[in-house]
Each structure stands twice: as structure tokens, then as C-alpha cells.
């Protein structure tokens, strides 16, 4: 086109459109009209409308199209929960969420039905669990994580965090959340951080007031440098294939001079030196000559089931694993750690050194104590443990003072008590509302991670320096599952309820501390029963819940068991320790159980005499043929190992308990794996009668089994 033509064209356009004011007016008015006519298209092409049109097409192809069409409501959907401050318009696009026939994978999202859940989606809406922005009707605005978001949508992997915002109680349906909460408590995160729902315990780490009497400065140096004594290359310790995580003490990344100062300070903490225990010299004289004194000690160590709480490293086929429980510290190298004087005194009475210790007080004979002490001092050692610790010498005044400052600066005082220093409760940031933190409020520092709260939390926990190189938070070593669990638990912390309506929905945590008074209370504290057993909702989960023990076990059996605990579940590694409990103590327990630990669901008046041999014969038939109970329970040597052995059920269990248990096991022990069968009343009676006939003669059978178990498989 030559310039002449172009100019001509422009001239023509100018004449036609802008030749005179009337034309200008006409064309510009037309332009305005068209512009305004286009304006409503912004509304018409809204994503929600497009999705609704698409849904109509999708359901046309379904066999139940007519019914689906009938239930489809076009326009904006809204679930309004004023009590919760929630506005939820997700179903505007997620139209098939409550249509059971749209559950299969062939239905394209966002139209697929929601998998079944305990909560009614129509009543609660979606954002209550999935977060995201409920009022939004556009995909990006509702789902994605951008700065302008109150709550980005929660990835399904972490969805259990939402359960935790209301259910402060343990929730069996949300194992990841529960694990995370347990880890938060286990690693004493509350030592430095405020975390709603997890109270700061009175005592977090061990009391260090007298640590100088227990261990040497060199050992302290080594421990502070790397607080784990057995670990593979990744710093992880495994127990029977289960990942053991790491000791609760994190790594603090201390420099050599800091290690020197801190170890100097701690090694001088000996305000109340422990009284050394003086063995009967005759026993020492007779035993010390024997070659096998340590072996005897080892046998005793096993008999007493120390491994229920403490683990030892065992190397088999070149693979090191820990065997034993994790309630107490692992003891593989304990002989190289503690002073012999301290060890004997500790074993006799742990609470004298550490009043809050969970370690029970055993009744020792001098011979047993001497043997076990010798075993631990000579066999549980590692000559190379302190090999790389430099020569430290005796602590100087400057070192001690610098060490004390470090003890405060590094936050040691948040978990450990020493004389003259009290914990700082707000040492670390408050985490009560970390789960609802907006990313605009997070400082990612040099971390190269996605700008999301989840990435931030994971980065911060797995390597605290990644987001803040000058931070004080120590290093924890968590595997991926634990990391996700802790992240889930943190995401569940969304701060105090925003509305009164929300407050009503909070399911409170139910763990009232149970510390009975009287004679029973003293023994309860002495043997630390609550470390493993649950009483009225308080206590450990390792061993059976004893809240209704008085209804379950007969007095005779209880007395026998206390004096000589025999296992009902021979496959378990962890067993009740041998406390060497005197008869008097066992009687106190039995009395208390009988009077106070009764279940209202158990009929205590049921008499054995009303169960006839005929009934028992019928019960045997039911047990063996109809219900095949032997699949899970053993009687004698035959049967499965899923449930406890029933060989001694007649001596062990009360008729009322058996009857109530058969009626509804979950009512007595919530969460038990025993299935609830639809027994008839006659069948229950017959089975009860049969079980009551199962008796093993003599109290000796359990005692014989115990030593052979050896605490290992």
C-alpha cells in the first residue's frame, strides 16, 4: 500500500467518523453504548457460571440425568454459618458434592461427590475443613495461595489439621494429627513456645541442679556436641524397624568454646550431692570374687523387664537397632556415662535425685542391686565414647560464668532446672495461632521454598537456620512422616475461637490428672503406675487401661499378678516390670481396685454358681465352632496371638466383666480391636460359663514363663 492511499484512507475515516460535531457525537455515543453493553459480560463469563453450564452437560450423559437435573440449583449457592463466621459458596461450582451417584472417578472435578465423612457437608460446608476462601466464586481466588489470602486451601495430606481445630481431644480417626501432637509434647516444644492445648509440664528435661555428681565434664561436652550416642549415618535410631526418632534433646550447634564453657558450668552443678549407697560389705565381699557377677546382673536386668522402658542397642548382622521401650533413656553406654556411686543410689531411690522422675522405686535386695550395678558398669560401656573429647581439665571461674550465660541464652533454662535459674516461659515465639498465619506475616529469609505456610513450617522444623540464619531454635532430626505429623499439629493451631458460636464446638481435651491420695496414692507414685497405665483417662498408653480393673480381675488373680507379673500376651516385647513388690503393697492395690475402679456397665452381683456345666458345654461349642475365638485367643498352647491368652480366664476375669464384655467390648474399653458380635443373651451366658471353667492350676506357671522371655523376642 503506498503512503498516498494510507493517507487517503485516514482522511476518509476522519471525515466519516469525525467530520463534524454531529458525527463525532453519533460515533462516540455509539462507542459508549457498546462499551456499557459489553460490561455485563464480565458477569456472564464468571467462572462459576461456566462451571454450572459444564455441570449441566456432564449430568446429561449420566443414567440418572433426570434426577440430577431436578436437584441442581443454578445461581450462587451459599452455606451461611453465622455462629462460625463462615460463608461457604464452594458448592456453587462443586455441584455434585452430595450426589452419591457422582462418586466414581469418571466424573470430572469439580463435580465429583465427596467421600463419606462423619460431618454433614450440607450443614458444615467445605471451608471448615479444607480452608480456602469460602466467599470466593472463582477457582484461583478460592483455592490458590497468594498473598491476599486469609486461609489458603489445605492440602489433603494435612487435612487432619482441621480436625484438630475443634477436637482438642485425641482423635483415633486422625492418627497423623495425634502423632504430631504427641511429638510436640515429646520434644517439649512447650518449653520455649506457647502452644494452646498442650500445657507446659512442671518438668520438661531432667533437673540439672546436681548434674555434676552424676556425670563427668567430658561426657557433658560430648553430649552437648551431639546428644545421641547410638545412631546410623543419618542420625536416626531404629527400634525393631520402627523409627525411633531421636533423643528428646535437640542439637544446639555449639562451638568448641561454647561447649567448654557449658560443660564447665554444668559439671560444677552439685548443690545437693547424692548420698552414696553403702552395700552390705559381706555381700560385696562374696559377690565381687565371682566371675559371673555381671552375667548374673544381666539376667536380673532382663527378669525385671527393664527393657519395657529402656532400650539397648543390639547389633545383628551388621545392623544396629535399639530394642526396648522409650519411656526411659536408652542405656547402651550408660556405664561410660554415670559415676558408679550415683548409679547405685539412683537405682535404689530415683526420686531422691530427681523428684519428678518417672522411674519407679523398686524393692532391691543388696545382692540384686550389686549385680545389676556391676552389669551396667562393666558391660554397658563404650571405651571410645569420649575419645574425641579434648582434654578439659578443671573448670575455671570465667568458663563457669560464660557457661551460665550460655545456659540462659541458648534456652537451656527453658527445659532444664538448675539452682538459681528459672525457666523463661516466652523464650520462643507463641505458636498458639501459627496454623492461621498468613504468608505475608512470615519471613522466609534465605530459604528457597514455595511461599506457603506448610513449606515454611517444614523448612523451619527440619532446618531452623534455613529461614533464619541467626535463630536460636536447635536442630531436631525428624523423618518425613514425623515432620508431616508435627506440621499437621501446628497447622491445627488456629488461635482462640473467633466467635462464641465456635467456642461451643470445641471438643475439650479430657486428661484430668489423676493423683489419688492415701496409701494407694503413695504406691501409685512410687511404682509410677501412670507411666504405662491409664487411670480415669490419665496416664500412659503402653499398658492396659486400669480404670475398671476392679470389675475385670478377681482379687486372687490381682494379688498373684502384682507379686509376679506374668504376661497375658506372650508376643509382646514390653512387659510389666518385676517390682519385687511386697505382699502388703499388692494387697493395697487389690483393695483399691476392688473398691474404686469399678465399671457401672459391669454387673458385680453376677455369681459364678449360676453358670452350669451344661451352659459351659454349649459355650465350648460356640467358642470353637460357631465363633472360632481361637483364631485370636490362645488357650494353653493352641490359638492365635491377636488377643490375650484365655487359658486362665476362669481365675482372671469376673463373670460380670465377661458378660458385659461379650455384650459390647467397646463400651468397656473404647477403641479395643475386639469385634462386637451379635451374640444372643443365651450365647453370652453360655460363653461366660465356658470361659469361667478355663483355669490353670498353681501360681507358678507365670513365673516360669517370665525369665524365658528375656525381654526380647
Amino acid at each position: 500500500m503506498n503512503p498516498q492511499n494510507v493517507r487517503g484512507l485516514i482522511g476518509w475515516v476522519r471525515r466519516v467518523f469525525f467530520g463534524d460535531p454531529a458525527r463525532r457525537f453519533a460515533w462516540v455515543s455509539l462507542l459508549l453504548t457498546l462499551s456499557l453493553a459489553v460490561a455485563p459480560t464480565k458477569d456472564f463469563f464468571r467462572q462459576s457460571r461456566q462451571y454450572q453450564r459444564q455441570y449441566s452437560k456432564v449430568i446429561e450423559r449420566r443414567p440418572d440425568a433426570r434426577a440430577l437435573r431436578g436437584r441442581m440449583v443454578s445461581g450462587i449457592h451459599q452455606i451461611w454459618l453465622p455462629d462460625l463466621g463462615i460463608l461457604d459458596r464452594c458448592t456453587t461450582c462443586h455441584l455434585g458434592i452430595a450426589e452419591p451417584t457422582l462418586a466414581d472417578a469418571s466424573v470430572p472435578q469439580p463435580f465429583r461427590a465427596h467421600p463419606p465423612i462423619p460431618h454433614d457437608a450440607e450443614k458444615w460446608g467445605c471451608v471448615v475443613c479444607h480452608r480456602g476462601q469460602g466467599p470466593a466464586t472463582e477457582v484461583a481466588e478460592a483455592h490458590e495461595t497468594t498473598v491476599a489470602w486469609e486461609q489458603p486451601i489445605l492440602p489433603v495430606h494435612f487435612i487432619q489439621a482441621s480436625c484438630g481445630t475443634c477436637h482438642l481431644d485425641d482423635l483415633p480417626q486422625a492418627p497423623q494429627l495425634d502423632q504430631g501432637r504427641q511429638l510436640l509434647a515429646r520434644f517439649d516444644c512447650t518449653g520455649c513456645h506457647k502452644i494452646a492445648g498442650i500445657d507446659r509440664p512442671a518438668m520438661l528435661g531432667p533437673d540439672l541442679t546436681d548434674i555434676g555428681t552424676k556425670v563427668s565434664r567430658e561426657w557433658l561436652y560430648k553430649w552437648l556436641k551431639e546428644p545421641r550416642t547410638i545412631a546410623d549415618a543419618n542420625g536416626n535410631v531404629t527400634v525393631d524397624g520402627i523409627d525411633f526418632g531421636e533423643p528428646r534433646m535437640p542439637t544446639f550447634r555449639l562451638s568448641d568454646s561454647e561447649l567448654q564453657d557449658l560443660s564447665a558450668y554444668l559439671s560444677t552443678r552439685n548443690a545437693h550431692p547424692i548420698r552414696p549407697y553403702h552395700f552390705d560389705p559381706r555381700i560385696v565381699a562374696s559377690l565381687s570374687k565371682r566371675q559371673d557377677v555381671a552375667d548374673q546382673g544381666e539376667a536380673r536386668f532382663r527378669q525385671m523387664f527393664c527393657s519395657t522402658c529402656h532400650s539397648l542397642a543390639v547389633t545383628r548382622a551388621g545392623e544396629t537397632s535399639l530394642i526396648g521401650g522409650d519411656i526411659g533413656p536408652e542405656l547402651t553406654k550408660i556405664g561410660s556415662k554415670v559415676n558408679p556411686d550415683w548409679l547405685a543410689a539412683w537405682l535404689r531411690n530415683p526420686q531422691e535425685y530427681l523428684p519428678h522422675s518417672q522411674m519407679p522405686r523398686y524393692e532391691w535386695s543388696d545382692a540384686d542391686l550389686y549385680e545389676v550395678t556391676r552389669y551396667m558398669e562393666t558391660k554397658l560401656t563404650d571405651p571410645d565414647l569420649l575419645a574425641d573429647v579434648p582434654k578439659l581439665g578443671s573448670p575455671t571461674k570465667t568458663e563457669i560464668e560464660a557457661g551460665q550465660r550460655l545456659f540462659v541464652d541458648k534456652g537451656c533454662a527453658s527445659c532444664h532446672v538448675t539452682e538459681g535459674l528459672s525457666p523463661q516461659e516466652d523464650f520462643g515465639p507463641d505458636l498458639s495461632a501459627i496454623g492461621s498465619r498468613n504468608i505475608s506475616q512470615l519471613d522466609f529469609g534465605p530459604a528457597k521454598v514455595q511461599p506457603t505456610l506448610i513449606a515454611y513450617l517444614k523448612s523451619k522444623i527440619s532446618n531452623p537456620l534455613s529461614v533464619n540464619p541467626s535463630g536460636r531454635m536447635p536442630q531436631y532430626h525428624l523423618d518425613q512422616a514425623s515432620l508431616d505429623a508435627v506440621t499437621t499439629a501446628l497447622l491445627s493451631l488456629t488461635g482462640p475461637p473467633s466467635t462464641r458460636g465456635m467456642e461451643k464446638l470445641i471438643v475439650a481435651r479430657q486428661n484430668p490428672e489423676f493423683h489419688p491420695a492415701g496409701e494407694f496414692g503413695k504406691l501409685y507414685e512410687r511404682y509410677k503406675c501412670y507411666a504405662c497405665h491409664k487411670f480415669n483417662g490419665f496416664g500412659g498408653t503402653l499398658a492396659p487401661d486400669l480404670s475398671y480393673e476392679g470389675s475385670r480381675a478377681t482379687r486372687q488373680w490381682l494379688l498373684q499378678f502384682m507379686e509376679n507379673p506374668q504376661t497375658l500376651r506372650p508376643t509382646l516385647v514390653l512387659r510389666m516390670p518385676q517390682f519385687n513388690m511386697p505382699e502388703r503393697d499388692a494387697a493395697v492395690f487389690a483393695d483399691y481396685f476392688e473398691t474404686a475402679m469399678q465399671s457401672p456397665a459391669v454387673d458385680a452381683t453376677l455369681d459364678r454358681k449360676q453358670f452350669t456345666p451344661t451352659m459351659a458345654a454349649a459355650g465350648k461349642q460356640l467358642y470353637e465352632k460357631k465363633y472360632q475365638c481361637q483364631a485370636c485367643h490362645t488357650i494353653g498352647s493352641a490359638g492365635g496371638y491377636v488377643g490375650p491368652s484365655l487359658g486362665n480366664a476362669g481365675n482372671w476375669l469376673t463373670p460380670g466383666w465377661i458378660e458385659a464384655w461379650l455384650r459390647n467390648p467397646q463400651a468397656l474399653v473404647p477403641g479395643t480391636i475386639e469385634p462386637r458380635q451379635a451374640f444372643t443373651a443365651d450365647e453370652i451366658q453360655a460363653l461366660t460359663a465356658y470361659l469361667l471353667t478355663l483355669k490353670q492350676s498353681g501360681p507358678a506357671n507365670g513365673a516360669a514363663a517370665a525369665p524365658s522371655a528375656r525381654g526380647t523376642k
Partner: protein
Amino acid sequence: MQKSLAAPTGTAIRNPIQALARWRDEFKEIFSARVRERQLGFRYTWYLGALTLGTFSIQLITGLLLMLYYHPSIPQGYADMKDLHFVVSSGVFLRNLHRWSAHAMVFLVFAHMAKVFYRGAYRPPRELNWVVGVCLLLLTLLASYTGYLLPWDQLSYWGTTVGSSIISSTPFIGEKLRFILLGGHTVNANALLRFYVLHVVILPLAVILLVAIHLWRLHKDGGMYVEHEKNVEKR
């Protein structure tokens, strides 16, 4: 010009036609009956005054509609913004129009002032109109500023906090002034309500009043300013 149907001013009006015609004549009075074409040359005014008035009209219309979906309370005001965006038919369009037109209006007022200055259109007898114009500039800024708080998001909250802190630096009465403007010591629910009332009632009424005076004076002072012949020759 057509012959007026209206009865001469001062005589009684007998029928509706006469009333309408009278009204039309009154309307014409606002403007000069005839305008010299040079006054209308694009380069003389760039139509900045008219355009400012145009944006103001857009503000009035869109603002009135937006008011119907807005509650001046916390945090409802913010939720209303979300509703306008996500569920109200064309709500987001109206809010955009109101917002962008507000920016355009502030810009046009500044531009209008600069243009009037460089043309020397403030010269007697237009001094009063210039002063009215300066007042309109301030009112426009204030109206835009008070509207800035209403969405109650981070942007508006902190913008307003920064802005209102400036007031408190006035000697002696600064704190008191800020206290009265905000109805408290911080930007809070009272401040939102006050800004709302200023934004939707007081300032628009004041602007309408001053615009009326502005136009009336424009007419009385001889319509749009044309430079003195001598000045023109001198350049």
C-alpha cells in the same frame, strides 16, 4: 435563536408549557447564549473542567449503587467488598469503575488547575472562582482519601493510619484534631463510620454546592476565559 415561549420574567406563569419554557430559558441563563468558537478550541481547555464534572457524575452514580451493598462496620465492610466481587451482579465492575474514576478525577482536578493557571484564567474578575476551585481540589482529595478507608483491607487501613498520623503533627491541637477526625486514638470502627459519613454525605454535598457556585461564577464572569487581545499579540 428560537423565540422564547416563556412569559417575560416577572409575569405570572399561566400554563405548564410556559413553565417548561421558562425553565428552559433559566437553564440557558447558566451559559452564555452564544460562545465564541475560539473559547471552545480543544487546546484552550482540553475540556478538563467538563471531564472532571463527568468523572464526578460517574462517582455519584456508581457510589449510590455501591452504597446499597455496603455496611460501614467491621468486618462486615470488608465482607461486603468480597460480596461485590464474587456474588453481586456486576458488583465488581461498578466498584472498579468507582475506583478508577476516582483516580481519574483527582488527576483531572490537578490537571484542570494547572491548565487554568497557565492560561492565566484566574485573573480578575475570576479570583473568587479560582479560590472555589482550590477548595474543590481539597474536597476532591478528601473525598478520595475518606473513600480509601471504606474497603477496610490492609491497604486502606494502613494508608489511612499513615495519612491520619500526619494530622497529629500539628502543634498543640494535632492530637485533638486526629482524635476528632477518627473518633478515637486509632483507626477503628468509629473512624470507619466517620469516614463513611464524610465520604457519602458531607463531602459530595459540599462538592455539589461548590461546583454549582463554580459554574455560576463561570457564567457570570463571562464564560470560558479568552486571553486578552493585547496579550495574544505580545506573544
